């Protein structure tokens, strides 16, 4: 019986002290901040969406234009893919383009070789599988689905990771953009969309851009990142 009384008495005291400590703690909580990392992450997303209500495009999109003759735009191009992740540091590839007439438009084949991120000139890794039969409409516009492509880590200017992504290009191939040498279609540009699956999972490329600059005299030009001909960040 004495034990029960003792237990009862000590329990009451314990509850009294514990309640006081807890009250002090909760009072302090009410006046001081506390961490909510997930909430802060979510709030940023909402603020971003409010600040960017539609797809961000950092360049003036291509319009329609006169189509070059079949073969007139053939040649080597510096292909720059400027992702929305880091627009100033594009993925670069050396693209060899050949075109043939196809109905009112053209049919284009592309062979693309990734270039090293260190100088944007030296081939690295294996060439991408050839893209054939890419259609260009009579007004010069095109939408090319390159499917899933893999870039080696040595061509990744953002990190050292291999990149796997689906890529679609929307642009125009214009006779009105002659190169300095007089070649047709010296500058091709447009927007890029798709989904990165590695190293980030399901990263949306919306808002990305691409350019193709004709390689003349064997000299690979400095990379441009969008239709406004913005320059890539220096290496």
């Amino acid at each position: 019986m004495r034990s029960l009384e003792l237990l009862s008495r000590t329990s009451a005291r314990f509850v009294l002290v514990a309640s006081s400590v807890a009250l002090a703690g909760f009072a302090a909580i009410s006046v001081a901040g506390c961490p909510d990392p997930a909430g802060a992450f979510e709030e940023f997303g909402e603020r971003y969406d409010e600040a960017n209500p539609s797809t961000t495009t950092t360049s003036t999109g291509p319009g329609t234009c006169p189509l070059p003759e079949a073969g007139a735009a053939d040649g080597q191009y510096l292909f720059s893919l400027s992702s929305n992740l880091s627009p100033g540091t594009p993925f670069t590839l050396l693209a060899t383009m050949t075109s043939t007439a196809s109905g009112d438009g053209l049919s284009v084949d592309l062979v693309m070789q990734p270039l090293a991120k260190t100088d944007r000139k030296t081939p690295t890794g294996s060439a991408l599988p050839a893209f054939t039969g890419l259609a260009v409409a009579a007004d010069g516009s095109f939408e090319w689905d390159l499917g899933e492509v893999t870039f080696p880590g040595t061509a990744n200017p953002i990190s050292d990771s291999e990149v796997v992504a689906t890529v679609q290009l929307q642009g125009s191939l214009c006779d009105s953009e002659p190169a300095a040498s007089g070649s047709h279609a010296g500058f091709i540009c447009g927007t890029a969309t798709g989904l990165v699956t590695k190293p980030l999972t399901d990263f949306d490329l919306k808002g990305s851009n691409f350019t193709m600059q004709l390689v003349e005299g064997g000299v690979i030009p400095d990379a441009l990142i969008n239709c406004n001909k913005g320059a890539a960040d220096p290496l």
Partner: protein
Amino acid sequence: MHTHSAKPLRTLIASSACLSALLVSASASATGFSTARFGGEHGHPTTNNPSAIYYNPAGLAVDTPGESDEGFRFKLMVDGTFALRAASWTHAASPNDSPEPADAVGANTGEASLFNFAGAPMVGAVALIDDLSIGAGFYVPFGGASAWKKNDAFANSRYPGPVDGVQRWHTIDGNLRSMYLSLGAAYDIMDRVSIGASFNLVMSQVQTVRARNVLGTNPVEQEGRSLIDVSGMNASFGAGIIGEVVEDKLWLGFSYQAPPGFGQQRLNGTLQNNYAGSPTTDAVDLLQTLPAVYRVGVRARPIPEVELRAFGDVTDWSTFKNQCVVPEGLDCEVNADGSFAGSGDPPYLNLVRDWGTGFAVRLGASYFASDVVEVYAGAGYDSNVVPDTTLEPALTDFHDVSASLGGRFRIADEFAFSATYTHIFYFSRDTTGESVLSTLSQPSKSPDSGGEYTQTIGVLNAYVELMF
């Protein structure tokens, strides 16, 4: 788009997160983010209350002068440590900072501050049968939490990032903790020497959000967010010895706590990024190595009314080289310059720490005014373990001194309670121009973290003991 209907739910969730901060210490540190202050001035390597299960398991079997040391006895201790922390970081523009846009001047420079509450519980119990004792406990000896104030100057900015504060490239909100569930045993040999050991099950968690750019720089126009949420379970052990050098008058103690996992921890979870408005989630591991802790102490009762204590610890934070976020299952291979050293998939992020070994010393004294009332005071010094080169707002450390005042009140043979207030005074640091984080290569590169750091913390520890 913004949905107002989500606000009440978020408030509820945030409140829950706030309450969960009660499991987080507030960098009321010994060194690094060691935060063991449970037991107040009675938490030390010669103690014989249930907090001994961490400070020195041998103490589980140490007798209290004047009390029975035979038959069955039981001790229960319920402890709460509550801290209020104020801190600031003032960053001046660094040559390696990205230029601020004309309409966002002050987004990356100026002062950031926080004022946070945090708490950590400890519960311990010991059953003694003659010279043998068995103990169990739950406590949080490593931890830190921070929630930085908003930068209201950017509340209506067209840039979504700067409102989270100047420090956001290093931390916005974060929790980091290692919670221990321990089972220990000790034996009192001839009433003069106690030896003890404990087995710990350690659950570690890291959840933190920071501003991030894929290049490790800090451009306001291309600002994203990274949220890491990982956890893991490890084992560790503690062991110690206490000698009663002079009967009922002088005790010496030494203990060792092994690091969780006995080395590198692999915490598993997710990394969420929001770059360019496209949220992604990837499975990742966070690799880190927490320290071993060595403790030594002496406790003396020259006269029955007075107890003197001197104790300290050496915490081997030199193992805390980095915190590396890698694709799930991979290792962290980086060169000295921070660049990727492997051939497969590189880390998502490698936070270079390069901390050093730290130590803490503390002196304390108790006066037993009666059988009921004990008053005590203490003072201590903790060394800094974070070099100027890698100090950043997410995990800070300083040289500090602290002073404590408290009392223990044994209002019945079976019941006592104690309260201790400790104020920790931190010596401010100015690391402007010293940070190397922005000079490292990817994936180790982060924005410059140089600046002036200040901090002050007040800690209230309270516990109740039940003894029979």
